[in-house]
């Protein structure tokens, strides 16, 4: 028995060691690469010159704006629909479920080809109609709405799953009935009873969406816009060291955002109980 336990411990240790090396080495090497001055010393040039790099702050701001708008649009569209399916129309639920799984089936590159196909209709067929103006407007490089549409679609499956699993632990029907019996209106019941119960689920959905938008490259690069990830790639062709530095920073930022958001969710929960 003791030998068996020893063997299990050893096996576990080996697995953890090998995986630990595989995951730690690229991070350590990248960190070293970003501060190596190729003369045996260290330099923090890549980090200090970052803020002055052309396009850095613009692209970062654009990415953050896109993330904020995407989260807002996504929750505004998804939450009423999911709640309605739970509360009033059970037949709606499979419809929403199918709708929210569809984007999973379509790879992002393929979705992007479809979007380009639609955008091409503008100059090809719709030249003299008001639709043409719309198609031009959603491609405004200062704030490309077309990217928000694509991002909402991409985030839909993950956000739906987060909210749905949150709803599974809450008996929404009873909660709303109780609130209504106490004289609350529909809006009041939803805003003061249902949504607070879903706080961590909504937070989860938002976190996943933010992470997705900040890292998204495919659609933005093919459509020719320049949010943060596209900037890293372009800049990397000219200044490899700085791009590795930014990559490390972006990993750190994503991690911090996720940590902060989950800590915020946990803090509120304990504060309430």
């Amino acid at each position, binding site marked *: 028995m003791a030998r068996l336990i020893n063997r299990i411990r050893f096996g576990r240790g080996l*697995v953890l060691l090998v995986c630990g090396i595989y995951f730690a080495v690229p991070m350590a090497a990248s960190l070293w690469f970003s501060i190596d001055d190729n003369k045996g010393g260290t330099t923090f040039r890549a980090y200090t010159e970052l803020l002055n790099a052309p396009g850095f702050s613009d692209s970062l701001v654009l990415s953050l704006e896109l993330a904020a708008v995407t989260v807002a649009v996504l929750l505004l569209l998804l939450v009423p629909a999911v709640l309605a399916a739970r509360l009033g129309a059970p037949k709606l639920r499979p419809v929403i479920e199918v709708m929210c799984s569809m984007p999973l089936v379509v790879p992002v*590159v393929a979705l992007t080809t479809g979007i380009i196909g639609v955008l091409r209709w503008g100059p090809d067929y719709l030249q003299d109609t008001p639709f043409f103006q719309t198609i031009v407007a959603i491609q405004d490089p200062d704030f490309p709405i077309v990217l928000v549409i694509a991002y909402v679609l991409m985030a839909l499956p993950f956000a739906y799953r987060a909210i749905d699993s949150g709803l599974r632990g809450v008996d929404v029907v009873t909660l709303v009935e109780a609130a209504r019996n106490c004289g609350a209106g529909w809006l009041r019941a939803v805003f003061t009873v249902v949504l607070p119960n879903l706080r961590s689920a909504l937070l989860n959905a938002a976190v996943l969406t933010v992470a997705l938008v900040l890292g998204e490259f495919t659609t933005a690069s093919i459509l020719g816009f320049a949010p943060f990830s596209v900037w890293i790639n372009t800049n990397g062709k000219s200044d490899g060291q700085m791009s590795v530095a930014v990559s490390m920073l972006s990993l750190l930022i994503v991690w911090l955002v996720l940590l902060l958001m989950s800590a915020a969710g946990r803090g509120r929960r304990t504060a309430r109980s």
Partner: protein
Amino acid sequence: MTTAPTPVPANASAAQRGGGVPGSVSPAPASARTAKAPRPGRRRAGGSRAWLAALPLLLFFVIGFGLPAVAIAIGAFTTSTDAPDGGGTFTTDNLTNSLQGAYWTALWGSVKLSLLTALIATVVGLPLAQAVATSRFRMFREAVMSASGVLANFGGVPLAFMFVATLGNAGEVTTSLGLTKHGWSLYTFSGLSVVYLYFLVPLMVITITPALEGLKTQWREAAANNGATSVQYWRHVALPVLLPSLLGGFVLLFGASFAAYATAEAMVGSSVPLISMQIGDALSGNVLVGQGNLALALGLDMIVVACLVMALYLPLQRRSAKWLA
């Protein structure tokens, strides 16, 4: 009919969770029973309003997803506007061309890469997840899970640059170990596989951990009491229970790897033939005159492969969810 079974596990799990408090056990099933009675009358009143609340999502989906889908479906089967006949006529040339020559090589390359990386990630991810899930240190478990969450989402350009800095031609590890002399190059099929595993293994850990936590200690004890060795337990009890989740995870990883674009684009450009690279190329106008719609046909190819994969995944997902209830 399809919605009927779903509330049952939901209520059951709610009742289970409240099991510690005697008072909270009865309300959940009771409400489930009584809720049936008053609903039909109210449903009609709330029904139309409920559809109204879902209307924005439906509309958004039709425009945002439906239109591109239609564009692909139409575009893949018609000639493009730069074609000699002015475009818009029905043709299957786009599809035929998209399954020939360099494009076929790229599609096959993508499938091969996805199969290989998904397989390795599954085989590595399971023991890793097990080692973490059975760890005695709660802090360690939570740290690994959150790190997995970050790394699984950490595809794309930063990942590519990190590996270029590590194992690229001038990378730190390459130069200090002299790997180039041994024939190593990051910009190949195997190099790309090593990079893909960096986000696929964590993804597997996240996917399989709930299933591992669903393995009940009693099963292991029962097996041990009946004289089963550790190997027999895994062979006859744990693996069969885990199999749907494992296969589901494999399919998920295949999909993630198949659809990946950013990492390969930032790292190898088009030196490794991949279907997503070819689509990106074709979309930026890098095709023969008159083949402007080829990219749409390539997109359709990709969707078909992904659909086949998902058709496997969804039933498996449902199957594995049963054990976790």
